[in-house]
């Protein structure tokens, strides 16, 4: 019914296609049942969890835990396409402005209350008030609840990509009980509809979740897919232990004190690979190593200087040092296999051409002005990237100098100031995973990361960006993305060096675990 309804809507064709794919792809598979239940699965996190208010935190450490507790109307499937979660169906009006969500019946919150549209509207209102990514809701004119089972969103104008934005899991619009929705930011009681409920949160130490016996699995799917699908809590409890020291974390896994770790440093992977009691799990495309120049500060306000920087660099050298050999070069801002992947402009990447760089510097009138590379030591990847990049720029005749602050200070300087830095080092994870439009948003008005003068972005880029958001067909949007990517690389708005995997590890008695953007502990069981 869902797919039939959606397929009738011209403007929502793309969304309908992906939703259809999500369900049809599982038709032949067998419905998941926990082969074994019980036990306490101990999962070691690499970062401290800064609270569990999923509306107001976009920290990965919050998502790591919270996405096992909360659910949304729409989320992302295994291939990052939108998929219904708490919504039973979604229909779009012919003019593309009204989205009607019928809710799944009998969904219970962890406090025992049954979810209705009153909870949905209250959650959306809270998100609009304090939600970090509230701009998702900017196109919304109003929302209504015709009955306890229906939630309707009316847009100001048709937005073909509205569902893609609504299903973002960076700061998802999770559904919470209406009585909790008045909570101030960071003070949301932890009550969701997910397969696990919160049992204990000892800040900076551990979070313990317990299987929610009132959970209603989504039987429209046979298997879990992305953050949605048929999820079942097989273990009795999950204990997330915060162990920020990598060596101690790995040692704990080796001796069997914990069952799984969020991240295994490259140096430890060989040792663990030889250990029969441990299985390594790898998400191949996780972190895109990205830098962006400052368009407002000399000398990177000069296009020729930026192009010279791009021409001079050897990406392999940089990625090798930053990721200890575990990387792939990537010809753009999306990964192969993603809907918007294109290699438009790839000839501008990894040029390793110092002669061309010198030529461009000469053409640009570069006089040896300092190029400040703003980095930090909190993320060794970023520091090592800056270190190698600085040497490469120097070798091509540029006066590169590192400016090392801690992460909060560096990020704030890059966001608030247009001086004191020329290149900023970062990494994109969900920005890339969520798809082309989300990625391009980083370089578009109103908040382009590279600080163009008067905050005005290249008109060609903005035109392509707007086309992506308004083109009715996927092909049209893909073409617009390719145009935008080429312009971004020609203007050197950002430099994508390559992609690094995320390597996790579990003990051999853990089954069903698959590395993903955050640890998914549904459909995971302990064999003993």
């Amino acid at each position: 019914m869902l797919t039939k309804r959606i397929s009738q809507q011209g403007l929502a064709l793309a969304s309908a296609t992906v939703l259809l794919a999500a369900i049809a792809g599982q038709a032949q598979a067998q419905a998941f049942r926990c082969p074994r239940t019980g036990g306490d699965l101990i999962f070691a996190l690499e970062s401290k969890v800064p609270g569990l208010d999923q509306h107001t935190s976009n920290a990965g450490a919050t998502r790591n835990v919270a996405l096992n507790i909360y659910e949304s109307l729409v989320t992302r499937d295994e291939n990052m396409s939108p998929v219904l979660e708490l919504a039973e169906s979604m229909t779009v009006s012919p003019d593309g402005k009204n989205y009607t969500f019928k809710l799944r019946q009998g969904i219970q919150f962890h406090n025992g209350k049954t979810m209705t549209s009153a909870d949905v509207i209250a959650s959306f209102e809270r998100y609009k008030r304090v939600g970090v990514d509230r701009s998702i809701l900017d196109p919304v004119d109003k929302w209504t609840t015709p009955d306890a089972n229906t939630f309707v969103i009316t847009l100001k104008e048709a937005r073909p990509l509205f569902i893609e934005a609504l299903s973002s899991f960076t700061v998802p619009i999770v559904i919470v009980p209406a009585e909790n929705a008045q909570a101030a930011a960071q003070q949301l009681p932890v009550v969701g509809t997910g397969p696990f409920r919160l049992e204990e949160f000892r800040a900076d130490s551990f979070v313990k979740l317990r299987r929610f016996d009132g959970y209603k699995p989504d039987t429209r799917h046979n298997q879990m897919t992305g953050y949605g699908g048929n999820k079942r809590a097989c273990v009795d409890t999950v204990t997330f232990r915060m162990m920020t020291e990598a060596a101690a974390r790995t040692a704990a896994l080796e001796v069997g004190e914990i069952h799984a770790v969020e991240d295994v440093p490259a140096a430890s992977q060989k040792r663990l690979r030889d250990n029969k009691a441990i299985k390594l799990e790898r998400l191949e495309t996780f972190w895109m190593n990205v830098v962006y120049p400052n368009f407002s500060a000399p000398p990177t306000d000069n296009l020729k200087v930026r192009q010279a920087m791009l021409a001079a660099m050897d990406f392999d050298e940089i990625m090798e040092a930053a990721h200890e050999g575990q990387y792939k070069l990537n010809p753009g801002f999306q990964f192969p296999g993603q809907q918007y992947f294109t290699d438009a402009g790839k000839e501008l990447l990894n040029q390793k051409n110092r002669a061309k760089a010198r030529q461009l510097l000469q053409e640009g009138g570069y006089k040896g002005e300092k190029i400040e590379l703003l980095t930090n030591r909190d993320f060794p990847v970023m520091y090592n990237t800056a270190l190698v990049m600085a040497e490469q720029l120097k070798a091509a005749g540029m006066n590169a100098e590192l400016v090392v602050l801690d992460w909060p200070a560096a990020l704030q300087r890059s966001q608030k100031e247009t001086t004191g830095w020329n290149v900023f080092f970062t990494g994109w994870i969900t920005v890339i995973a969520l798809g082309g439009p989300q990625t391009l948003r980083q370089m578009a008005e109103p908040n382009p990361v590279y600080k163009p003068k008067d905050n005005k972005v290249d008109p060609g880029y903005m035109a392509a960006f707007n086309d992506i958001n308004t083109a009715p067909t996927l092909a049209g949007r893909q073409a617009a993305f390719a145009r935008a990517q080429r312009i971004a690389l020609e203007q050197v708005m950002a430099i994508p060096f390559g992609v690094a995997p995320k390597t996790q590890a579990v003990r051999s008695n853990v089954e069903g675990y698959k590395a993903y953007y955050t640890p998914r502990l549904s459909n995971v069981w302990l064999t003993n």
Partner: protein
Amino acid sequence: MIAYLIKRLVQCIPLLLLVSLLSFGLIKLVPGDPAVVMGGTNATAAEIEVIRKNLGLDRPFHVQILSFYGNLARGDLGRSLMLGQPVRDAIIERLPATIAVALYSMALTLLVGLSIGVLAALRHNTWVDQTAMTVALIGVSLPNFWLGLVLILLFSVHLGWFPTGGYVEPTTSFLGWLRSATLPAVSLAMLQIGLLARITRSAMLEVLRQDYVRTARAKGLSEFAVIGKHAMANVAIPVVTVVGLIFSVLLSGSIIVETVFSVPGMGALLGNAILRRDYPMIQGGLLFVATALMLLNILVDLAYAWFDPRVRVGGAR
């Protein structure tokens, strides 16, 4: 004595006010704020602005500081921005672990440090002295994060005697606590043992040269009585000073040791608060540590009087 105590306590008040003012002002001068940290690597400037507003960081400085002192006057240290819990509760929650590990570490320090120091002094310029001082030197030189990892590798991974990390409260299981606290306590104690051993040796050597020690020996007192009763009483003054300092350091926690061993204590709490720019937590934590240090100093001063009648308050006049 009581009057002296009250006077010292009253003197603490302006100092604490100064500490709170400085901590409030200085932390605001440090670039980067909690919203940036909460935003993570992917947040846009607009998203960070939303977080900033949610946290009340967009309010003018004077409004924020007045609010801080208003709350402080009511005994409220504020609410941690990152932990989502009152600062007071966060401190109360973590203090027992820090105190327990600190006491364990202190006990090890006193036992081993004093023994080594005394032994080295009694066997001055022998191989015993040289060995003891070499051990002490190694103790003060070893970085405790490195030592912690080596201890984990040796005693947890290879021998399996102790857990690699985590903390069990003594009320839950004393044996479990002993196992979980031993490696952190040893890591912390190594540095302090070296320090205390060297101070003890030096103080003991000076005392052993005093006339009254020679007199005690000449009177035929046993060596145990000479050292244990007469010499140690005078060694106690400098040792108590150092012990007070050591304990104040241990009480404020060690971010490195607590991080390596995943002990939820004050050091990790404060260290993380600084890294995350959790302003209320930093201010509350510093205020607590300053208070603890001042009280410890008072206790050390009172201990002088206990050990040495000459400095007993008012008694020398």
